[in-house]
């Protein structure tokens, strides 16, 4: 496992024609007497490299294929999946789905999305940028990233290493309306995690970047440096007293608040009456300055797509929260029919979620909070989606006079999401632009901290 190897990490040529496999599967389903069917096929390749303590630790090569079919017959459905894209594999998988559809219960809401909603514009969204670096170049980058973190000072005592991963693939979605779309995509990331030590106590922190285009990745050195800074800042952390306080989520943590929001707006949670947002449509659930929107057609962004997971054309943008008011659920065709509504083209989730800001910098947000807790890490999943009750482990920094005072750990922050959304006092312009949700720091008043 020397580092002198120079194989390219290009994705291998697609060995199976995915479109042909999709067409074959739909034809098999038709021959089996199914009313409708839909197929997703993807194939991709990648490499993951980890270096630790300035030596290569692991190289993993990925080469995946997966085929998923759903069939519909007399308003019953079944689905099956397999990695075997051979003709026999397709036949066996379709047969398994057909068999399931004979046992499930009928529901008029099952079926493909309506034919008139299928996307017609399938033009490219600039999502495919395979990384042209050789493996040894990737190893060198991981080593440089970790070195930059280890150079962070004497108190950096150990390392969990730096990792680089790259993945490129093709995906086809097709259904028995005659719709077919073929798309390519890539995703690359660099991450680093190191350990600091002072007075016998250890702290770990990490930093990362993830992009579709490797040219846009932050430099390995900058990731390493940021990792070291974050780790060192946590040394000497202590518990604080239980109290009611203002809490500021840093941009990376703030995203989680919108993941809970979208979870509560999904059609499945609504028709099963399992969401804390059940009766909130058309109501004001955030302050007026908050707008939450999705933008599926942005060029080169991680969530971009011309159609959703059922072929339904995505809009170029739409608001979900408009000036604080909840304007729409998040629906695919099944849940839309259950609710007597139209699909919002969200089969598979929301795409490129953007949160409006109130213009402040990170420091301005601290200043506005004056006294309170800056949260930089959350652990655990203490959220009841039926009631909105929220209680999670947190660590971060105590802030007074708008200035960071000392690191804090081993506390929880708690409230109810309904109140927390209403109590947002500011959303910073210090937007974290990685991933599907982009958001700045968020200041929330009146949360309960449990500690000493």
């Amino acid at each position: 496992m020397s580092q002198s190897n120079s194989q390219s990490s290009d994705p291998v040529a697609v060995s199976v024609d995915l479109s042909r496999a999709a067409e074959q599967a739909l034809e098999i389903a038709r021959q089996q007497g199914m009313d409708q069917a839909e197929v997703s096929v993807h194939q991709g390749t990648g490499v993951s490299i980890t270096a630790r303590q300035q030596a290569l630790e692991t190289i993993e090569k990925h080469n995946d294929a997966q085929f998923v079919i759903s069939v519909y017959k007399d308003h019953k459905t079944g689905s099956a999946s397999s990695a075997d894209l051979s003709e026999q594999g397709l036949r066996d998988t379709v047969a398994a789905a057909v068999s399931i559809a004979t046992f499930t219960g009928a529901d008029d809401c099952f079926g493909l999305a309506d034919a008139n909603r299928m996307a017609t514009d399938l033009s490219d969204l600039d999502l495919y940028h395979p990384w042209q670096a050789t493996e040894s170049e990737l190893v060198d980058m991981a080593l440089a990233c970790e070195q930059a973190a280890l150079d962070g000072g004497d108190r950096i005592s150990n390392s969990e290493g730096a990792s680089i991963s790259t993945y490129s693939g093709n995906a086809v979605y097709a259904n028995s309306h005659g719709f077919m779309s073929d798309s390519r995509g890539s995703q690359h990331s660099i991450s680093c995690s190191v350990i600091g030590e002072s007075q016998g106590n250890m702290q770990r922190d990490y930093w990362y970047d993830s992009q579709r285009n490797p040219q846009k990745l932050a430099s390995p050195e900058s990731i390493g440096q940021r990792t070291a800074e974050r780790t060192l800042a946590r040394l000497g952390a202590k518990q604080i007293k239980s109290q009611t306080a203002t809490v500021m989520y840093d941009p990376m943590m703030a995203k989680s608040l919108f993941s809970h929001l979208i979870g509560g707006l999904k059609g499945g949670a609504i028709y099963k009456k399992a969401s804390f947002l059940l009766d909130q449509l058309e109501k004001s659930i955030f302050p007026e300055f908050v707008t939450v929107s999705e933008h599926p057609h942005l060029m080169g962004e991680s969530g971009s797509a011309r159609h959703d997971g059922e072929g339904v054309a995505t809009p170029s943008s739409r608001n979900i929260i408009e000036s604080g008011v909840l304007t729409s659920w998040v629906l695919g065709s099944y849940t839309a029919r259950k609710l007597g509504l139209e699909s919002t083209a969200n089969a598979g989730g929301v795409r490129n979620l953007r949160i409006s800001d109130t213009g402040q910098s990170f420091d301005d947000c601290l200043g506005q909070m004056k006294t309170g807790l800056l949260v930089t890490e959350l652990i655990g999943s203490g959220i009841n989606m039926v009631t909105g009750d929220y209680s999670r482990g947190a660590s971060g920094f105590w802030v007074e006079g708008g200035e960071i005072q000392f690191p804090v750990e081993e506390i929880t922050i708690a409230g109810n999401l309904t109140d927390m959304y209403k109590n947002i006092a500011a959303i910073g312009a210090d937007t974290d632009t990685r991933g599907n949700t982009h958001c700045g720091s968020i200041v929330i008043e009146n949360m309960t901290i449990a500690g000493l």
Partner: protein
Amino acid sequence: MPSDHFTTAQATLLDPTGLSEAHLNQFMQKLTNVHGCDFADLYFQYAKHESWSLDEGKVKTGSFNIDRGVGLRSVVGEKTAFAYSEDLNPAAILNAADVVSAIGRQGQNVSPDRAWQVRQHAPLYKGLDPVAQMPDAQKIAILEKADQMARAKDSRVKEVMASLAGVYEVILIVSSDGRQIPDVRPLIRLNVSVIVEQDGKRERGSMGGGGRFSFDYFDDQMIEHYAHEAVRQALVSLEAIDSPAGTMEVVLGAGWPGILLHEAVGHGLEGDFNRKGTSAFSGRIGEQVASPLCTVVDDGTLADRRGSLSVDDEGNQTQNTVLIEKGILRGYMQDEHNARLMGMERTGNGRRESFAHLPMPRMTNTYMYGGEHEPEEIIKSVKKGLYAVNFGGGQVDITSGKFVFSSSEAYLIEDGKVTAPVKGATLIGNGPEAMQTISMLGNDMQLDSGVGVCGKDGQSVPVGVGQPTLKMDALTVGGVQL
């Protein structure tokens, strides 16, 4: 019979593509023809998954998946090269072996052909295929019963969601030391969850279980038990008041609350973190890391349990490993790679999600032995505190030792009596410190019902936990009521 597993593995994994011992020798020569190779293995796996789910009184969806593939690994010192193939034809596997050996610097010596030895350890569960064994109509009937039983419990039950899942896996591990180790692993699970409503207020409750056996396990009595528990928990939650916030005495119930041990000590005692020195428990063998009442083990040898394995995913026999004995740290959980590098014994804890993932040290069934007290005595000893009996998930920061786990059913204890139910809250502590505050253990040690899933580095594996009722003198409770 032991030899049956090898016959099954051969028929499922090797015969369909004509893989012979000569092929295995050819693959192994490629994998070990790497300068300084310590060991190498091939992990052949066939996995069949089936699941059904019900809501609105109907089984609406079902899904079926078959995965088949082989993972190939070569290890030199601290370095690992890994590739896998979903195609079991000799040419495709040889290609993957080439990828692995190309990552390494090729050596000069071609190892001699191995005299393969089949090693079959005594199975801890029957090698049955739960998916094939029960007709689909009967699986549907299990879910429909769960729905009817839950709805019949109380008119406030508004929605019932239930899911049934079965897995059948056939494994063959081919190791560079010449062993071929088969295993055949069934795994089933049933979950029932309900939404109840009263005066416009809604709550949820859920219960489930399973293990390594056939779907016959879910007889009427068991389904009734799950339905009853799910409804009971949801109705209790309807009455719940705000949970207290702050550090207080906490009594944890027996069984599933053992998630405490999984988070507070289990992960921190996995060999990889300790080899690297990144765990709050690193270098502390022989030290007092818990109260003298505590003896904690990881035991992969319990018959039919969800977390059990006859052999781990590197072909090593699982065992009952003492992690903490009367409060003293005794040992770590090890896989092949980390045991070798640390000069310690393997403990049969090498596990992987699938052939497409690298193995690492993972827990099996982690539990604490029981103590002397009646559970009532423990409650009686608390002036003001929390009694938590059901939990959702948990998480731990290995390095700082901070762990959380979130309660879904808890009550206040006032003057030695269990009083009002309180809303779920996250409990947070520091592993080695929190374990020192355990001051009473019940005589009611219990294992969980068989639904645990553990995630680490993006890989999920089934696990079990267990503990007696126990009291912690000081733990932070993350409620909203100051």
